[in-house]
């Protein structure tokens, strides 16, 4: 058990994935790419949870991951529906064009 990938490496990987997700959300205009970036962030968090779970010999973290996955699935359903609606409305999936509420 003590052999294998050290915890720090996994945490570092998780941090890198999370940052990539943030960068994607901040820089992309294509809403599908943003969406994928959000998924990336969620999974980065999942990775960290699993790693900690194993490090501490505690299953709570893994159970939490299942919740996160369920949530992510629901989010995908809602998010894709919004994207379809947005595309029907604007004929594009550029987030900058969704600016009806801009004052």
């Amino acid at each position: 058990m003590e052999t294998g990938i050290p915890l720090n490496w996994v945490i570092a990987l998780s941090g890198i994935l999370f940052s990539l997700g943030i960068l994607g959300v901040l820089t992309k205009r294509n809403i599908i790419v943003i969406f994928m970036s959000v998924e990336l962030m969620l999974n980065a968090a999942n990775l960290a949870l699993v790693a900690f779970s194993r490090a501490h010999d505690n299953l709570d973290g893994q159970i939490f991951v299942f919740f996160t996955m369920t949530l992510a699935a629901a989010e995908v359903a809602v998010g894709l529906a919004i994207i379809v609606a947005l595309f029907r409305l604007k004929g594009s999936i550029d987030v900058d064009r969704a600016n009806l509420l801009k004052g």
Partner: protein
Amino acid sequence: MAGTHEAMAWSVLKGSVEDWSAVLLVLALPFAGFAINGLWGRRLLRGVVACIACGAIAGAFLAALYLLAMNLSLPFAQRAMSVYVFSWLDAGPVRLPFTLLLDPLSLTMALTVSGVSFLIHLYSVGYMANEEEFSRYFALLNLFVFFMLLLVLGGNLAVMFIGWEGVGFCSFALISFWFTRERAAEAGRKAFLVTRFGDFGFFVATLALLAIFGTLEFGDIARALHANEVLTPWWGGKVGAQDALNRPTALGITLGTLICLGLFMGAVGKSAQFPLYVWLPDAMEGPTPVSALIHAATMVTAGVYMVARLHFLFELSPVALLVVAVIGAFTATFAATMGCVENDIKRVLAYSTISQLGYMFLACGVGAYAAGIYHLVTHAFFKALLFLCAGSVMHALHDVLDIRRMGGLAKKMPTTALTFWIGGLALAGLIPSGLFSKDAILHAAQGQKALWALGLFTAMLTAFYTVRLGIKVFHGQAREAELFEHAHESPAIMTLPMSLLAVGTVAVSVLWMPAFLGHWTALPTYLQPVLGETHEPSAAEALQGTLWAVGAALLGVIVALWAYAWQPGTLWRVAQALPWLYRLVAGKYFVDELYATLITRPSRHFAEWLSGRFDLGVIDAIVNGVGWLTARLGEGVRRVQTGFVRNYALYFVTASLLILLYLLVRGTRF
């Protein structure tokens, strides 16, 4: 009349509301009448509205009669019954249950109020037949009676205060019933504000009593005072009840005196005594049956009732009692003089009411509470009658009020004239029952010669102005032919209540007759458990007192006859010879003008300053300033809201990073 053993006699028992549920009916019926007519009256037929209104009061009267019968069937000492209805306020040391008090005094009042009110309601059906807002009128009339009944049946000062304020509001609403008339609206406002001013004293005194006794129940306060129970008043420590009221105050009078004067201030406002009487003459702007209601049954009698109800408190303070007696006697004379020169038929009656209420306070002040209540009851009958007669005259003459334009109406309106003379002579103290009740008061006042003399003088003035009014309206030559030609007797629905009240005026005298006419003392005997032993004079003393009073009244009648029937014009020359006196009295002693200069105008100026300069310059400036600041801030901050989702995400990430940074710098030790 000794004050000490009275409280002993008045011990209040606890009654259950199941046994005395009729009392709820007394209150609920007028309120239901108000609710139905107030909510749906406009959609109902006039006949239905009238039936509901009159029926509600008639029902209340019958329920009160039933309660009286039940009360009379009880043994003498158990006739005071406090009925607990529900817990109204229960906040720590402050406990105000909603209790109703059924005792001889409250039942006498409830019967008088509901009985006379019923006849006035009946009369109103005829009088207001052509009124647009028929249902509003009757709804308010019912509410008025409801509040008055609540006032007299309330078992503690708090419940009494609800009724007290309620009648104040209803008088306002009914005096300014024709609110589109400037003068009516103003009179209503005046009545409300002036009586409210007095209510302030009443309220403060009530709070003081609560802070001393910890209760406002009439029975509990009386018991505590009688037994000198140990209390914990607001200033701390433990003191006996009587010592608490004897505590000196900074004003040089005892606390008890101060409280009594505060209560009396409320009575002065409500019962239109000097110096707060000014609202009552102006209240004549309301419909005439409303005047009858205010003057006879509801409203103005409240003050007298309250003083009689709390007599055990007033009796501890000779100073307060003296003030009550002096204010009463002075007001009686003061108002009577103004009645002598007034030319408005309703205002003459208004001044006579003020004057008669003065008599009642005089009676209370000298300890003759039963006499005061007796006069209250008889006055309710004959004053209601006189107002209804005045209304009948106005009805016939199309709202002419000036008695200088009337005359000779007895030929056209025999019933009105006859009933007027019955009521008028009772008012003048020449026929029962006014004769007996006024005699009882004057007799009780004989101990204080100055007050007695004022009372006799007032009796003379009363006879003078009543006869003057009668002669000018109903006899002599018709002064305006056209008015006279169109005059007609009122319909039966109006003359019937008048006749009933005329009969009642005389019949009510069986309740208490002077000693030389035999042993007719039903009322004082019945009231004795509450108000204490009434000192009944011997037949010879009573006869002597009556002769004095009748003599004074006859003198007034002779002067009036001489001045208005035998030698018309002579009195006018006398008035011309004393122009300053005439102007002083005819100008109503310029009290209204004095108040206008001292109170109304300064407060109006102050209000104008507040609504002008202060409101615009300070209040509005603050409000506008806040708005301006918010708008400027918003303009600055709105740049943040770009509408681009990525910008928001950036704020979010930046903030998260800053928090992380902070945690790193501070260390993660929570």
